[in-house]
């Protein structure tokens, strides 16, 4: 499968779009008619993932860990409990695991078998995370993958790839950039990118 092909199908043309739209609408009507789903509930689920559950939640966790060593210690021991102590709109479920980047080790998260991703703290995964190129290559040539994200690590930095093959979910705690020592927690949170919490990005300083 070439890139063009992949590209084509992630961005369907108008006829495909219309076909999918009507096929999904039909299924939704059948399920609504039978009473298995409620339209208002579906609307709210879509709204939650579009507006409430996203990487800003993860960024708050990271920023707190940078300014509060006691919170960071709890995060690295039991990330679900630590995250929930910050009080998100919808609670973080079981078995969130935070893994810390250090000058010696860089962490990268993938799900080679499907698309497992810490939805509650990062939202829904981007298309590239679910794509064949990322899933196939992250475990065998992570440096080449990182280079495509513009990330060059020192040659002696160890790379640890976490393949999410069970119901545990991984959040990378990126390194706090230099030059931010006197920054507020909010300002730090604004600096934290989604990709830095997957491991395909670094948090860049001012």
């Amino acid at each position, binding site marked *: 499968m070439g890139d063009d092909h992949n590209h084509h199908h992630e961005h369907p043309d108008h006829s495909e779009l219309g076909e999918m739209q009507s096929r999904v609408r039909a299924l939704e009507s059948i399920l609504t*008619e039978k009473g298995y789903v409620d339209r208002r*509930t579906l609307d709210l689920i879509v709204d939650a993932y579009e507006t409430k559950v996203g990487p800003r939640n993860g960024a708050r966790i990271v920023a707190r860990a940078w300014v509060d060593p006691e919170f960071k210690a709890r995060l690295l021991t039991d990330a679900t409990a630590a995250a929930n102590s910050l009080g998100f709109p919808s609670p973080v479920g079981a078995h969130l695991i935070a893994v810390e980047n250090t000058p010696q080790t860089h962490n990268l998260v993938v799900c080679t078998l499907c698309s497992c991703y810490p939805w509650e703290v990062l939202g829904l995964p981007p298309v590239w995370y679910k794509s064949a190129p990322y899933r196939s290559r992250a475990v065998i040539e992570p440096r080449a993958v990182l280079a495509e994200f513009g990330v060059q690590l020192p040659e002696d930095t160890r790379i640890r790839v976490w393949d999410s093959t069970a119901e545990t979910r991984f959040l990378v705690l990126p390194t706090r950039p230099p030059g931010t020592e006197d920054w507020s927690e909010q300002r730090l949170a604004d600096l934290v990118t989604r990709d830095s919490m997957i491991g395909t990005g670094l948090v860049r300083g001012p």
Partner: protein
Amino acid sequence: MNSIHDMGGMHGFGRVEPEVNEPVFHAPWEGRVMALYRALGFLQFWTIDGGRAALESLPPKTYLTASYYARWLMGLERNLARAGIVGADEIEAGRSLRPAQNHPPIMTVADVANLQRGNFERPAASASRFRPGDRVRTVNLNPVTHTRLPRYARGREGLIEAVRGCHVFPDTAAIGAGENPQWLYTVVFTGRELWGADADPTLSISIEAFEPYLAPA
């Protein structure tokens, strides 16, 4: 099953192409599919592993060429038909042809406020077999049904790094053979163990491995 979904280590798929300012959904139907998936998941007609198994059993060509949420839709249709919720004839007709079965209460607006994932940890029937620091070898298995042991990590030697508790076993849960809880471990392998002498010497890879996937090394 050894199908196309098990992609770790494959070559030839090209570059990773991040999209700048990617929207959460690329078309409204994608959001509806995601919401249907969540709302139907709430009714527990099938397990999370049964949902994954349905996607994995799509023909490889379909799996590779359909977009992500199109695959979800196909998996959903497959499981709805299998569970007798919506028949293929009803999907064809575009309307309900039979009344609903008895079912648990459906997901409501109030439930959306509590969208957290399920907890798959279960009480353990016995002590864990391995401890952090133990050397293990993954088994070689090739079931035609669902498994979470990727091909690239079968028959390989690694180190138990962490014990994650006792969890629902996907291999049985996916086929309706029960939760059969098993100890779950983080097992870490060197890049060279998985990919040979030419592998990046700075690389290590971990999987989350259920106890039946492991034997003492």
